[in-house]
């Protein structure tokens, strides 16, 4: 990118349906007339709306004081001229300065409120973020790693690369990659402060270097474009109601010629013997339960389509099965027990399931555990791996 690029690096839009004016990007004009069209758009929007005008600055990464003053002035004046009108400014917790700076406006005019937009867009966050889930995430990553360490080199992983792990959770994957493949730099991003605190603690305690943990929103990251050779996003597209928005961001930060690597499940394909029927019934229900909360844990085999539609080429897809035979069967059983706790516990009750359903639902998990620990049993959890190259 040329530093003297004269193209404006911000965008202002008005969405009449939602009565929402949004401004995004880097707004650092020398003189206010550089903002002319955006200011006119805001004035025009104010002229049209009734009731509430939403001012969305969630994707505003930088704005200098001159520009801030110019936009604030118009909003403050409008409040004085039209007491019937309310303004709701929507900031993001990810861009640290916006809430503070825009927050001032509500002290000046009572008709301006400032809301920090946050976690709502990830419906499952509450279920998984509870501290109790951490040991299970660790065990899960330990089990999947046995497979992925062999798979990753086929998808662009090699020493010396610059990589990002988006939705990194507690950071175990980043740590394992760092040890095994020695990329030159890893940026690991998540939207859970508690997971990041945990990840940073691990990094300090084990004196690990080369990983930069960052708080962010995968659907609109502060990371610059085209800077990573490999972008990984594991078990996470499936928890967003609009995975294509996340993929768009993964594409954006990936270098042309670099790859984006995603892993996802298809929960209804979890299996076990003996007691196959009960297990199958329960995991079919798991998929429906997540569907109820707008998460698609059946996404795995759809990865190819998502990657193609996002503009990737040279798409590679493979699957692997985590089973009770890799490592300690008790690990497998522990993971299932933790799933049962959350899925047949909090999630089922939140959906309002009756006790009979919950009992049967739970039984399938019990049977999966039974299969895993049975001396002649077999239990599996299939994962879909897919990657695509960003065109040159």
């Amino acid at each position, binding site marked *: 990118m040329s*530093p*003297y690029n004269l193209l404006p690096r911000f965008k202002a839009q008005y969405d009449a349906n939602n009565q929402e004016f949004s401004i995004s990007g*880097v707004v*650092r004009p*020398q003189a*206010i007339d550089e903002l002319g069209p955006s200011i006119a758009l805001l004035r025009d929007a104010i002229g049209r709306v009734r009731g509430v005008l939403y001012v969305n600055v969630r994707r505003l*990464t*930088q704005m*200098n*004081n*001159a520009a801030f*003053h*110019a936009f*604030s*002035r118009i909003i*403050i004046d409008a409040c004085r001229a039209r007491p019937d009108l309310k303004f709701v400014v929507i900031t993001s*917790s*990810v*861009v*640290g*300065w916006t*809430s*503070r*700076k825009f927050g*001032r*406006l509500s*002290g*000046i005019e009572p008709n301006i409120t400032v809301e*920090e937009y946050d976690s709502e867009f990830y419906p499952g966050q509450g279920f998984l973020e509870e501290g109790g889930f951490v040991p299970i995430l660790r065990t899960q990553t330990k089990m999947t790693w046995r497979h992925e360490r062999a798979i990753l080199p086929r998808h662009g992983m090699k020493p010396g690369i610059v990589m990002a792990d988006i939705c990194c959770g507690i950071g175990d994957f980043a740590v394992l990659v760092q040890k095994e493949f020695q990329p030159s730099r890893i*940026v690991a*991003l998540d939207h859970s402060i508690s997971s*990041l605190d945990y990840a*940073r603690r691990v990094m300090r305690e084990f004196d690990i270097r080369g990983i*930069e*943990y*960052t*708080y*962010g929103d995968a659907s609109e990251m*502060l*990371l610059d474009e085209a800077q990573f050779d490999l972008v990984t996003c594991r078990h996470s597209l499936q928890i967003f109601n609009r995975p294509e928005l996340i993929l768009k961001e993964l594409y954006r930060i990936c270098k042309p010629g670099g790859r984006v690597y995603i892993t996802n499940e298809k929960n209804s394909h979890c299996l076990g013997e003996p007691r196959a029927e009960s297990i199958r019934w329960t995991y079919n229900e798991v998929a429906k339960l997540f569907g109820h909360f707008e998460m698609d844990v059946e996404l795995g085999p759809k990865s190819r389509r998502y990657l193609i539609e996002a503009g990737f080429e040279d798409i590679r897809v493979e699957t692997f099965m985590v089973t009770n035979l890799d490592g300690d069967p008790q690990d497998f059983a522990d993971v299932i027990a933790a799933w049962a706790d959350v899925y047949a516990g909090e999630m089922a009750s939140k959906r309002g399931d009756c006790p009979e359903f919950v009992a049967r639902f739970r039984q399938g998990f019990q049977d999966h555990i039974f299969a895993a620990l049975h001396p002649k049993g077999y239990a599996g959890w299939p994962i879909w791996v897919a990657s695509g190259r960003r065109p040159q």
Partner: protein
Amino acid sequence: MEPVHHDLAGGPAFEPMIQIDMEIKAFVSVWRHCDYVSTYMARMISQNRSDSVRHSNLFSSAFNELLEVVFRTRHADGELACRVSRHGATDRIELILPCVPEERRFYEEAVSQVAGIEARERYLNSVSGDLAPSREVVLLELAVDYNATLRLEEADGDAIKLVVDLPLEGLRN
């Protein structure tokens, strides 16, 4: 880069991180230099902060405002030096710039305003006021929004040295 020590007041020693020097004439020839220098330096010094991306965003935001103030300063010929050093959670920006005598007085007054008790109120008034933010208000905002502390130090010849401490690492939303 020579090491800088600031123990005049018995304060802690700051470790130098990065320094950029340029002709002030060259700097003020293109507005985008403010953005470019602040973004570049922010990225370089934030790598080993606990959240490099956020730190870099905040640092760039504050530093750009300072550079915009410098950009608007009536300067004498000479070099502009931008230096960043670090002590614990605090990053220190030092700007050494050649300037005409009236500008020295502007900086002296602005710095004392920033340290004054009404800094916050003055800043708030300016947000609701009609006038575009003055350079003084921009400096006030650094104190109010980023907990910055500002002071002036002696420098050689026509130059002044503005020292700004930014405790961004400890700043919550």
